[in-house]
């Protein structure tokens, strides 16, 4: 990270830290653990739904039904819990700004998250354009399988990076 960027990050963290909301979270010791539990429950829905979609692309799961049906069943549970994750994530950042924003594990997690969301959107578009994307043609099937494996690895790494925030602090 460049020195200027690092400096402005310090300023932002110091500013968040002295806001009344941050101070309130810092002195109320049940807020962070409770918010973390909700955060993990929402991640459970997202990661498991993404896994079901990825396993369908790999044809390990539900190959008897169209990929489109599996996607429309599970995609809402990848996208909607994001609101809960964003909200609970923001509360944790406000409560401990330097511990999160300046943390390499947190920064990695955000980069991985953006990549995973892009991969999810790409899968959504590909299957919408060609419902047989994961099922017909060796090249398409290979591509679908590669995307699925990448997606599973990304979500696993996001969860790992999330846990490592606590150890880099």
């Amino acid at each position, binding site marked *: 990270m460049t020195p200027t960027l690092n400096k402005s990050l310090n300023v932002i963290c110091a500013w968040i830290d002295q806001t009344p909301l941050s101070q309130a979270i810092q002195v109320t010791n049940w807020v962070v*653990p409770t918010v973390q*539990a909700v955060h993990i429950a929402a*991640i*459970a829905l997202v990661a498991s739904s993404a896994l*079901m979609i990825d396993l369908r692309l790999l044809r390990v799961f539900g190959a008897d*039904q169209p990929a489109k*049906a599996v996607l429309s069943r599970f995609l809402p549970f990848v996208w909607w819990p994001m609101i809960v994750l964003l909200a609970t994530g923001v509360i944790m950042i406000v409560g401990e700004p330097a511990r999160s924003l300046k943390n390499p594990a947190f920064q990695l997690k955000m980069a991985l998250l953006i990549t995973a969301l892009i991969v999810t959107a790409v899968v959504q578009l590909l299957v919408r354009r060609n419902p047989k994307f994961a099922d017909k043609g060796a090249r398409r099937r290979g591509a679908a399988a590669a995307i699925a494996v990448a997606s599973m690895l990304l979500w696993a790494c996001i969860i790992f990076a999330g*846990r*490592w925030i*606590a150890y880099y602090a």
Partner: protein
Amino acid sequence: MEIDRALVWLQATPLATTIAENDVLFPWIESVHVLAIVLVVGTISIVDLRLIGVASLDRAVSRLMHDVLPFTWGAFVVAAITGSLLFSSNATNYAHNFFFRGKLVLLVLAGLNMALFHLIGVRDIGTWGTKRKTPLAAKAAGGVSLLLWILVIGFGRGIGFTMH
């Protein structure tokens, strides 16, 4: 007490002391534990939401359980193994921790709820399993399961915040 002696013995085993003394072993095992729990709770939620009648309504309940539950069990085995390893590294203190004890009770309750559903709840599944609307007993089983698993996560986090 017998059990306290057993815990002291467990904590002194080479594997347990290695986990306790190594800088990165505990976080790595813990990361796998969290990943496994996330998959346990997430995949169970998929079934619970179907039982409550809010999601996957186009898929028969028994088909959905057949699709999803093998992954739940696989993840549960990983969670149990990693959880036991974490426990062994500080067994005497975990055993006396309120949240750890609570988490075990919640796991037993979740297991009982599941057993009850598989013994009684699925008896007449032939009459409602393919329908979008589910009976009250199925809704109750799904709701109780969802609540218990969210509490399992909450108590798990509680352990982390009270142990160090």
